[in-house]
């Protein structure tokens, strides 16, 4: 696990990523708290906190006595949220590094275009 960020946040993000890339489809069952704890070698209470955050967000829902499942519409919801965060998370460090190296915005745009046609 990555230092500096709460582990439960990282657990939640990992499940979100699996939902976004389709490996955890909507209405499928997500691993249990104890399975997540054993797999990541983390405290079960921490794993539960990550799951509970996703339940509070409406990404997962609980089927009593069975387990946690991916909510309908979760994928679209997560994609929207990640798109909003995209500039801040990915463009900002790109611009900062470009500025440090004296690469102009026009050059950066150019690089993105050539990257796509590779």
């Amino acid at each position, binding site marked *: *696990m990555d*230092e*500096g*960020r*709460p*582990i*439960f946040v990282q657990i939640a993000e990992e499940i979100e990523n699996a939902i976004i890339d389709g490996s955890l489809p909507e209405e499928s069952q997500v691993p249990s*708290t*104890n399975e997540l*704890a*054993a797999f*990541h*070698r*983390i*405290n*079960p*209470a*921490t794993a539960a*906190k990550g799951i509970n955050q996703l339940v509070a967000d409406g990404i997962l829902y609980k089927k009593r006595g069975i387990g946690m499942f991916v909510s309908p519409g979760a994928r679209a919801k997560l994609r929207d949220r990640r798109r909003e965060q995209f500039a*801040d998370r990915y463009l*900002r*460090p790109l611009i*900062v590094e470009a500025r*440090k190296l004296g690469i102009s915005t026009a050059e950066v745009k150019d690089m993105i275009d050539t990257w796509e046609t590779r």
Partner: protein
Amino acid sequence: MIVSVKDVTKRFGRVVALDGVSFTLRENAIYGLLGRNGAGKTTLMQILTGQQLPTAGTVEVFGARPYENDAVLARTCFVREAQRYPDDYRVKHALRAAALLFPNWDEAYAQSLVDEFGLPRSRPIKKLSRGMLSAVGVVVGLASRAPLTLFDEPYLGLDAAARQLFYDRLLADYAEHPRTVVLSTHLIDEVADLVEHVLVIDQGRLIVDEEADQLRGQMVTVTGPPAAVDAFVAGRTELHRTTIGPLVRSTLRGVADADSRAEAERLGVTITPLSLQQMVVSLTTGAARPDMLKETPQ
């Protein structure tokens, strides 16, 4: 709450081992008890398990004083770093004794752990290697399923694979049979993700009593040119500073959240969160005391 410690002080002659320590332990949680050698961790665990009396202050375990209290001690398992056994004891005798002592003992589970750790059942305890001796303690600590289980440096001589086995079995059994576990250890990085709550003792005083997730990222190092680092440090608590050529590295209390990352970017400094182990080291680096040398580091 199953343990309540209030203003506990323990003196050995003129040495103050514990100095006004207060905290509580709740039911079903894994605690990390961290600190340097000689900080008072073992003394504290001895007091919790009725093997020492505090000089001052009160200790309640399961609502009663632990000292000479069989009802409390039957629910408590203390795996010590240097457990002594009667001279003629073999591995199987130690396990049989534990089975009699602990009401929740799971014999089948104990036997499966003995196999997993590769313990020779009929070998005399005094002929065991250091690692095997530690493994006996680990088996007893896990299979006793005591509602309060304390491990004091349980892995001396255990190799990395055996320690991983211990952590994995602890997590799996804890998930099935929740209880309160206190792990006292120097291998902080290895247990950092296992513990839910962190207690740090330094020179007899409790200096950290916090949820592990709260603690993560509460300290950072900031590296960059002196003027930029100074600008970042302003208004924050600096704990330590090192200079290497044109670069300064400052350790400070602070969070590596989005705001401080943005500020670091703007100033041109690199911000890195400290691991739990690095945090504990920077909080407990006092002057070396002679009693620290008594315990052999691993």
